């Protein structure tokens, strides 16, 4: 059991590393989806099947579809020369490693001390549905608001000129306006 867990953790790190470092965006998106698959298997292993199913369907499936669609709408541009900031390639990971290590040690010590002194807690709900609908019901409303906001934002970003509210604009003037604007 613990061997499988270690293998899955290693798979997450390897695929996340590939997702960040690969230059090909499509391969990067596929690596991210594979990392999500490994994470969802860990969720199933921890006996949290709803989170695992969400991670597998939404985190691995839908996000990858969205990424591949967006990559398909763009085309590959050659990487440009880095003029300055080359030493940052070495310095930034080291600084990030130090910061993350400090945060990690602080979190570990804090949580360890909290675990040593048990605090009185509310009676835990028996099932996930009780937790979701009775304890975390505000999250459902927040999710609804966030999803609606996202839908309206995407609709606004992809709206066409001359829709129900707008009026069709002249293409020749529109091109000159765009060139002036950029």
């Amino acid at each position, binding site marked *: 059991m613990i061997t499988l867990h270690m293998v899955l953790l290693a798979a997450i790190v390897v695929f996340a590393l590939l997702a960040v470092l690969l230059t090909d965006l499509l391969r990067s998106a596929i690596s991210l989806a594979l990392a999500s698959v490994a994470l969802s298997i860990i969720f199933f292993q921890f006996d949290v099947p709803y989170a695992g199913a969400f991670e597998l369907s939404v985190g691995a499936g839908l996000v990858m579809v969205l*990424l591949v669609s967006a990559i398909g709408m763009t085309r590959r541009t050659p990487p440009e020369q880095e003029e300055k900031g080359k030493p940052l390639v070495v310095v930034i990971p080291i600084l990030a490693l130090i910061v993350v290590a400090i945060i990690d040690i602080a979190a570990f010590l804090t949580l360890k001390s909290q675990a040593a002194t048990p605090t009185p807690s509310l009676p835990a709900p028996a099932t996930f549905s009780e937790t979701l609908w009775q304890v975390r019901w505000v999250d459902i409303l927040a999710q609804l608001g966030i999803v609606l906001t996202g839908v309206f934002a995407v609709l606004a970003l992809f709206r066409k000129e001359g829709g129900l509210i707008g009026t069709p604009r002249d293409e020749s003037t529109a091109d000159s306006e765009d060139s002036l604007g950029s």
Partner: protein
Amino acid sequence: MDPSHIWLYDLIIVAGLFLLGFVGLLLMRNLVKLLISIEVLTKGVSLALISSGFARQNPFVMQSVVVTLIVVEVTVVAVALALIVNLYRRTGSLDIRKLSDLKW
């Protein structure tokens, strides 16, 4: 599985995912790669939440939080990709260095 040991291992991996995400955010110039780096950070947060819930023997609350996190995550990805496609149509590039129109 001993929850405390598993939690410690998971915390190390979470630190690694955070490191990867921050390095990607700081070093990458491509907008899609920046979004992928944010996704890697989110995977670390999900793993930290579920592992902490498992270690505290109370996974249900963390499970509902992670479900909320995934919904927020996919909304952020959808809106960010719509922005990226619009910016690409306007500038013809995914390089963040080309997006300096707001500077003066």
